[in-house]
């Protein structure tokens, strides 16, 4: 994809200059909040929407003006869009039938696809007689039977219940690896994005934010939006001031020392001496301080403790201003987040209850710094 743009007739600019290169056999996830243009981008690749400007290539060939049929793609829709009057076998074989494939060959391919998906016993059923998970498999079957050069999936798991979703998540990823077909997978669920993708593309309001492997995206977000969007519970983002000599950073009334090593890794931080920045800390980078430990600390007032068994999720408040990345959190959630509220994951045995003042050890190497104005990460 090169500088793909989509402008609707009503002037709405859904996708801005999007450029993306997807390798052969790669599982690429497009993720972002609702209305960020990810589905539009996918539909343009499918040929269901016109491309306003830019070039789309599949396998090196420009396909802007080709019909969906000519592009050699297969798509799985959010609501599956199975043909209700056809059996599972007919549903899976429909595209092949339209290509006038001889019957024995068609049957063999349908059977093969059904084997991969565990649908062999259901081939004579109609979609109405199947469970949600089975319908989802049929929709997958319809895509894989054609052996296309690209799979396009538009939130294929969002209609399943939570347990099945986790199961199918692994299965879709397994099938994709098995077939090694380039895949574009659209989701708004960042957990799906993290667990399934070889690489993840984060989008916001039609603009591509960052493309990277899930781990790199998590550890080194390019901007505040990506930082806030990826990860659950979300990253704690606070307004802070860098000390004059760049040896400390001040969150509200608390001052955290910045070791030399941290600054060396981020030389650009020197330019922010005495200036405002946004700092980000993942919940797991705020373990409860053990006795006698040295290093940077943060003290917070505990509001709520959620025991998850393996760990405690501690909601706390500090007197610094909490930064909310617009669009990353929905408005209701944003309103609920009090000023200065943060989340930490601490060891399950930590003795803590609401109302306590808890001291967190700050894993300072993992702290992220962002420019207050541009929202971009401060690194090199």
């Amino acid at each position, binding site marked *: 994809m090169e500088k793909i743009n989509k402008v609707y007739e009503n002037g709405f600019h859904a996708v801005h200059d999007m450029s993306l290169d997807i390798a052969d056999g790669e599982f690429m996830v497009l993720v972002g909040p609702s209305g960020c243009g990810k589905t539009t981008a996918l539909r343009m690749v499918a040929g*269901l929407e016109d491309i306003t400007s830019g070039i789309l290539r599949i396998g090196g060939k420009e396909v802007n003006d080709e019909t969906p049929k000519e592009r050699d793609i297969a798509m799985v829709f959010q*609501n599956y*869009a*199975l043909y209700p009057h056809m059996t599972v076998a007919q549903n899976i074989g429909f595209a092949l039938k339209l290509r006038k494939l001889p019957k024995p060959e068609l049957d063999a391919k349908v059977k093969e696809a059904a084997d991969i998906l565990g649908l062999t016993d259901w081939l004579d059923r109609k979609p109405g007689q199947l469970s949600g998970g089975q319908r989802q498999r049929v929709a997958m079957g319809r895509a894989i039977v054609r052996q296309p050069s690209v799979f396009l999936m538009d939130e294929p798991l969002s209609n399943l219940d939570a347990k099945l979703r986790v199961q199918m998540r692994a299965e879709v990823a397994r099938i994709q690896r098995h077939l090694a077909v380039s895949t574009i997978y659209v989701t708004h669920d960042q957990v799906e994005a993290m667990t399934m993708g070889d690489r993840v593309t984060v989008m916001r309001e039609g603009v591509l934010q960052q493309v990277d492997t899930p781990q790199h995206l998590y550890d080194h977000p390019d901007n505040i939006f990506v930082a806030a969007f990826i990860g659950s519970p979300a990253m704690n983002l606070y307004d802070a001031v860098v000390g004059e000599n760049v040896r400390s950073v001040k969150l509200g009334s608390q001052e955290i020392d910045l070791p030399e090593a941290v600054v060396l890794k981020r030389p650009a931080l020197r330019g922010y001496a005495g200036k405002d920045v946004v700092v980000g800390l993942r919940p797991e980078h705020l373990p409860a301080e053990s006795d006698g430990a040295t290093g940077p600390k943060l003290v917070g007032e505990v509001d709520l403790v959620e025991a998850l068994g393996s760990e405690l999720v501690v909601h706390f408040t500090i007197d610094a201003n909490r930064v909310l990345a617009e669009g990353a959190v929905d408005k209701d959630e944003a309103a609920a987040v009090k000023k200065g509220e943060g989340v930490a994951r601490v060891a399950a045995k930590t003795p803590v209850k609401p109302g306590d003042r808890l001291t967190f050890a700050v894993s300072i190497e993992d702290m992220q710094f962002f420019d207050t104005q541009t929202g971009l990460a401060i690194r090199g």
Partner: protein
Amino acid sequence: MRNRKRTGWRRYINGINISAFFVVLFVGLPLYWLIASSFKTPANLGNSPPQYFPNPISLGNYTDAFKNNDFGQYFINSLIVTLIATALVLVLGTMAGYALGRLPMKGKFTLMVTLLIISVFPAIAVIAPLYLLLRNLGWLNTYQGLIIPYTAFNLPFAIWILRNYMLGIPKEMEETGRIDGAGPFRTLWTIILPMALPGIFTAGIFCFTACWTEFLMALTFMSANNRRTIPVGIAEFGTVFTVPYGTIFAASVVAVVPIGILVFIFRKFVISGLTSGAVKG
């Protein structure tokens, strides 16, 4: 607790069953009276107290309708006119409904409102100009002289029903068809049409019943005896001096049969779950 199991006599005698009984009685009794009377001899028809069951059972009324009157011809006329008009309405209505429901078009709203206005237009208001028009065309006493007006009058309503039905079919169905490689007509034929069947049958039933029972136009445009349809034919039974009730009852029973058959088929097709399973929900 709505679905608690009823036990003992309450299983049979409860509010729902009693109401159902009265509704069935209300609808079924006139129909029973019609059928029963059609088998009575002319002498027994006017008995007081009335015969609840025909005795002796006579087929005289039926032979009279078919032999002494041209009821067989009327029946064939009605069948030809109604079937062709209904077929035309469904073919045109399905395509128009699909276009109005789905395709990007300008002036859709105006068109739909115009259709609605036309569909509530009283036939009596246009019957005179229509008569002159058909006379000039030389279409009086021809099948097309009824088929075309019937099609025109029933089409707007059918388009409304079908358009609304098409709107309910998820657009992903067509998109997935396009990706699978089906052209527009293939998509309409193999994907949309089977899913729209309940809507098409509903429109078909309405149209069939309307044409089958239409009286005013049939009376005005078809004066020749061999072109009369059932409603007009039955009305013309008898003479100034006699009203052959038995024959009229017998003819009416025969006239009801096609609608009965149609509803029976209709029942089989209109399975509300036909579209279930296509999408979640």
